[in-house]
């Protein structure tokens, strides 16, 4: 076998082994099961809930949990795209990729210990303030909690080896060994997330227990509850988008505060890469979120309606605002990016149309319809729906809007991709016609499927959203494939990295701020879906804070947590630059050759 094939085989073997790891971790609990008592879930009274120093227990746990999730999402995402970039560097043999991958790792190293620290704080708070619930959860998940602890140890080992061996395992076969360590790191991290997700999703859709909460199944059955995998997929994708957004802010800041042209060029390229990572993670997210929502509806219609049609409905309007901001910022950055190439000017006339679609889609998406409410809630909210804007507020219109926004975001990316390439294949003109036709028919299909929803019964209306999603995916996939082949061997023109306005960098700051706030908002929704239950339908929440707080209250808490997180990330990034700072020797008093 050639050296190259050997590497693929090695990677393949390691990968297969690694994908077995989560299965082994989960299955390990099944073996050696002790017969567990079939006692129902506890029914805590008010007195069973602790409160410390007059602080709101729920807010404390909420703050710690959300901080932990912010940090965990970040530290799971970074190794993933670092490995991808490192891989790209190894395959293209372009040194810049490897340096960038290394830099991404370096700036995020401090985050890992903070993640664990906040996680520890969260565990302490949970056991202190909600002992009955935690006692029950321990009974359900038993040894899996110890495996979780072990995985943390394993993750630290992999992390430190992966980072510190970067230069030692730099070239040839050693590079592949290094990437295998990175793969192991990612697998361990992913397993950690899957385990923690199982606990969160169990609280929403318990399985492996009967209606009273008595344990009837194995730990694996409790793990593999209906919402586990939708949550896994959604969080996996969202992490990537989130991680990209945060490192993008770092790059933008370094760009703005550097003077040297080559340093600015470096950070501009880093910012561009981060934005691409964020978009790649972001594009499939609505579909993963849709699947999650669909599974929620399938598990319990009531839970689904509480989310989208009941008390929590307004939250999805805020979500629309945030996602609209994110898409607009990401697109704006791409449009500014067209200025890096001379050919970019060719695409600039199209920008205003894309902008129109983005803004229009955003406005449609933000429009609320009627809210399914009890008569009391209707009174409180002051009405149900607006005669004129009403039709825009229901799902068919919103699906048209969001799908088109995603398609046109991809178009922005495609334009930038083409802006430094001149196609040399003979069929370029026909190929382009093919791509344009794809966009036209695909968008028409999205529209048609949406209008269809107005004319058909509910089940068909909901069913029509799938063709919309597939249309979007088809456009992205086929346009991507066609462009890849069309621009093979293309003539490359100069990309003037660093030729970006200050304004464009602020778009990169909007991304992580909006993402962070959005993530916390979604966490608030997810927790609220359980209404007044600790474990839905199985263990009631009898604490004084069993109510769902208002959006305003939630918004305030979310903002505080976001600010704390931003401060922490600033600190983490500052640490990495501190580590690289060297104080100049003031008077040459230290002799050369003296031991250090």
């Amino acid at each position, binding site marked *: 076998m050639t050296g190259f094939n050997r590497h693929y085989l090695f990677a393949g073997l390691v990968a297969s082994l690694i994908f077995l790891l989560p299965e082994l971790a989960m299955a390990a609990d099944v073996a050696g099961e002790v017969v567990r008592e079939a006692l129902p879930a506890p029914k805590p009274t008010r007195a069973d809930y602790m409160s410390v120093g007059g602080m709101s227990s729920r807010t404390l746990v909420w703050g710690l949990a959300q901080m932990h999730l912010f940090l965990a999402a970040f530290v799971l995402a970074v190794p993933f795209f670092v490995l991808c970039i490192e891989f790209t560097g190894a395959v293209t043999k372009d040194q810049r990729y490897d340096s960038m991958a290394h830099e991404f790792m370096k700036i995020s190293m401090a985050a890992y210990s903070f993640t664990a620290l906040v996680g520890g704080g969260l565990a302490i708070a949970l056991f202190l303030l909600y002992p009955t619930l935690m006692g029950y959860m321990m009974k359900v998940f038993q040894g899996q909690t110890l495996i979780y602890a072990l995985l943390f140890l394993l993750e630290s080992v992999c992390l430190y080896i992966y980072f510190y061996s970067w230069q030692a395992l730099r070239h040839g076969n050693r590079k592949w060994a290094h990437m295998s360590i990175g793969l192991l790191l990612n697998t361990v991290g992913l397993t950690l997330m899957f385990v923690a997700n199982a606990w969160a999703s169990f609280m929403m859709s318990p399985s492996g227990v009967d209606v009273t909460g008595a344990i009837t199944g194995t730990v694996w059955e409790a793990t593999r509850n209906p919402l586990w995998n939708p949550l896994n997929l959604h969080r996996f994708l969202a992490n990537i988008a989130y991680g990209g957004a945060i490192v993008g802010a770092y790059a933008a800041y370094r760009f703005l505060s550097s003077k040297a042209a080559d340093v600015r060029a470096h950070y501009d390229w880093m910012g561009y890469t981060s934005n691409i990572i964020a978009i790649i993670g972001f594009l499939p997210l609505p579909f993963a979120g849709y699947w999650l929502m669909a599974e929620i509806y399938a598990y319990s219609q009531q839970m689904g309606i509480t989310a989208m049609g009941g008390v929590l409905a307004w939250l999805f309007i805020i979500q629309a605002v945030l996602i609209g901001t994110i898409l607009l910022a990401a697109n704006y950055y791409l449009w500014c990016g067209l200025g890096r190439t001379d050919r970019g000017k060719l695409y600039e006339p199209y920008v205003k149309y894309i902008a129109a679609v983005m803004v229009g889609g955003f406005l449609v998406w933000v429009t609320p319809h009627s809210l399914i409410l009890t008569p009391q809630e209707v009174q409180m909210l002051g009405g149900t729906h607006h005669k004129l804007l009403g039709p825009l507020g229901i799902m068919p219109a919103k699906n048209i809007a969001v799908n088109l926004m995603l398609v046109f975001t991809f178009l922005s990316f495609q334009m930038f991709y083409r802006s430094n390439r001149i196609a040399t294949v003979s069929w370029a003109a026909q190929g382009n*016609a*093919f791509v344009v*036709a794809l966009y036209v*028919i*695909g968008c028409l299909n999205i529209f048609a499927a949406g209008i269809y929803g107005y004319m058909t019964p509910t089940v*068909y209306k909901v069913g029509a959203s799938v*063709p919309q999603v597939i249309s979007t995916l*088809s456009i992205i996939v086929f346009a991507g494939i066609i462009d890849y082949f069309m621009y093979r061997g293309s003539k490359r023109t100069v990309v003037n990295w660093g030729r970006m306005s200050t304004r464009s960098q602020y778009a990169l700051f909007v991304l992580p701020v909006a993402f962070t706030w959005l993530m916390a908002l979604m966490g608030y929704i997810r927790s609220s879906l359980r209404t007044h239950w600790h474990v839905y339908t199985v263990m009631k929440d009898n604490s004084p804070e069993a109510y769902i707080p208002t959006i305003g209250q939630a918004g305030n808490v979310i903002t505080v947590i976001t600010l704390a997180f931003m401060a922490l990330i600033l600190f983490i990034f500052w640490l990495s630059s501190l580590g690289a700072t060297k104080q100049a020797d003031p008077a040459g008093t230290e002799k050369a050759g003296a031991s250090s």
Partner: protein
Amino acid sequence: MKASQTLAFAAALVFWGIFFYLMNLFIMESQGLPVAWTLMPK
């Protein structure tokens, strides 16, 4: 646009039109939602 390009575009429109129509049909049927050839509910 050259004539060959216009032709290519027209052919592509037809191609993608058929592709998306068949996709719609397939997706609705696979969800257990019977539709007529007009894609309206049966």
